[in-house]
């Protein structure tokens, strides 16, 4: 991962988030019992009947620190052999649960065995892990086969950036790498799709605004509510212009005005870069005290032959908090990758002269 692991101190620092979680929990218990609901009701039933708390100024309260860790091992695109089946079977879920338990045991190991074969990668406990088995076979929920629609002919000619751990093709410059490796951004979707770590999303609301903060590459989207229109099409940004409103208890965020040819729609913003026609509609719905269902429709007619949709839950976990992810400030990987490539150029040249 080219030195982009940040130090993750484990201490008693996040009492406050426990307090916030407990407050949210207690408030929910109070409101749930008032409406005669049991908090232990199955998720599907709760999703219909759950009434989220309100902020003092009357908006549905989505605030908290969430993670998509449970979906770390769920692929964006569904393996073809699973066809149109979106949900895992009970047996498959049980198997995932067993894997989560055994992995947790393995992660307790602090030192490699004396004769262990170790590579250059990080030890297993450095990554984040799913805590509960996911329910889905893929993050893509539409089209029904869980696959990205075909690229347009023009989009197939666009070059995708070089990702982490890949030194072939050899980079001529920083411009050959993805915007993530360059510590610039992962784009809107890349900032919330689950990856091996740093999956934290914190939501802070104020009157007229929702802020969505993401740990990795330290994103902060400030979304004005009920402002009606986007900024002029002459203003284009990596993260686009987001405007929001509530539909019932769901926050709907509409984002346009993206720069063309920057990030893609894969994990960490990799893959074929999207165009200036990209239009995202995201929906955030709190379905129980700890869970927000996230949904995004990706429409980019210059890149994909039809719109497609991704959905997965993000959830709160006691003690989980965001840390500062100073990516560019410590991007030694970029210097090292480029100087390595130049050293290889030199070696090739020397070999050619002989």
């Amino acid at each position, binding site marked *: 991962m080219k030195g982009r692991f940040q130090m993750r101190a*484990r201490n008693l620092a996040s*009492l406050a988030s426990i307090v916030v979680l407990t407050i949210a929990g207690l408030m929910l218990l109070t409101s749930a019992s008032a409406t005669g609901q049991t908090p232990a009701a199955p998720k599907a039933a709760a999703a219909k009947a759950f009434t989220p708390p309100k902020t003092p100024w009357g908006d549905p309260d989505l605030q908290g620190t969430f993670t998509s860790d449970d979906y770390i091992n769920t692929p964006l695109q569904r393996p073809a052999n699973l066809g149109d089946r979106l949900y895992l079977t009970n047996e498959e879920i049980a198997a995932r649960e067993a894997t989560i338990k055994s992995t947790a045991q393995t992660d307790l190991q602090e030192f490699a065995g004396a004769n262990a074969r170790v590579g250059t990668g990080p030890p297993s406990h450095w990554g984040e892990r799913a805590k509960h088995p996911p329910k889905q076979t893929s993050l893509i929920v539409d089209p029904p086969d869980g696959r990205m629609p075909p690229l347009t002919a023009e989009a197939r000619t666009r070059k995708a950036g070089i990702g982490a751990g890949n030194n072939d093709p050899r980079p001529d410059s920083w411009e050959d790498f993805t915007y993530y490796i360059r510590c610039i951004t992962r784009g809107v979707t890349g900032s919330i799709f689950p990856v091996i770590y740093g999956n934290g999303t*914190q939501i802070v*609301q104020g009157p007229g605004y929702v802020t969505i903060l993401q740990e990795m590459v330290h994103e902060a989207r*400030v979304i*004005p509510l*009920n402002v009606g229109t986007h900024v002029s099409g002459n203003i284009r*940004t990596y993260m686009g212009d987001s405007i929001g*409103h509530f539909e019932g208890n769901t926050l709907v965020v509409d984002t346009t005005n993206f720069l063309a040819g920057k990030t893609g729609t894969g994990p960490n913003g990799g893959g074929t870069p999207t165009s200036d026609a990209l239009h995202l509609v995201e929906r955030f719905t709190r379905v129980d005290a700890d869970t927000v269902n996230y949904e995004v429709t990706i429409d980019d007619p210059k890149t994909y032959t039809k719109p497609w949709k991704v959905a997965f839950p993000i959830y709160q976990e006691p003690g989980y908090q965001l840390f*500062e992810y100073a990516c560019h400030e410590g991007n030694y990987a970029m210097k090292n990758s480029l100087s390595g490539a130049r050293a290889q150029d030199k070696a090739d040249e020397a070999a050619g002269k002989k």
Partner: protein
Amino acid sequence: MRYRFPGVIIIVTLVVVIAALLLVVGPTTAQAPAQRGQPAAAAPPRAINGKPNFTGLWQSIGTANYDIQDHSARPGPLFQLGAVGAIPGGQGIVEGNEIPYQPWALAKKKENQANWLARDPEVKCYMPGIPRATYMPFPFQIVQSQKDIAIAYEFATANRVINMGTPREAAVDTWMGTSNGRWDGQTLVVDVTGFNEDTWFDRSGNFHSDALHVVERYTLRSQDVIDYEATIDDSKVFTRPWKIRLPLYRRLEQNARLGEFKCVEFTEELLYGNLRKQAK
């Protein structure tokens, strides 16, 4: 990151929860909910749970980012930029205009200033730290909830969430520090610790160490002006704590909103240009 849940915390938590519930329930009933479904019509509430509402887009005016002390206009380092690259003069924001450097530190400040472009972290698009983020020539957005307060700065997408709950110790040193907030009457007081030694105060080489401790005070002078004050303490660099003070103005343009200044792409040629493949 996660940790075990010690039993003692439950008691502390319950006390805080009860207090918080009382706070939440009290003023809520007195306040009309914001109108929804209408574009930008409803005026924002002036208070959230009885505390002033700082939510909005703010910016400083002045030349403090060039030099936090009183300074005359002077030429910039690149003559090619002419008047555009010159440094405007202006009044500083330091109380009494004196920064009480220890002798070695004053020498280093001067050296920094002489090597501005090579050393200023702003040039490299690094996160600016606190308080510098407040008076850079970019706006920043405060989003204030009934719990925590988020501040998103336009420069480099730097941001921080001010923890308004039980104060937490800085877990690691960072560029933007660890912010714990509290209310002193109608003033928001933010205690910021856990800084690294890599940020500066301005483009004139004013610097600090990793012992930096900043206490900020935000007070509404009127709906559209915040009186901002910060006490700066760093026993490794200064002989005593000192203060800066400046007003922050609300951006009042119609549809004013936080822009995006992700400046990394503007620095890569500078930082990595020597490692670009050379044409044969």
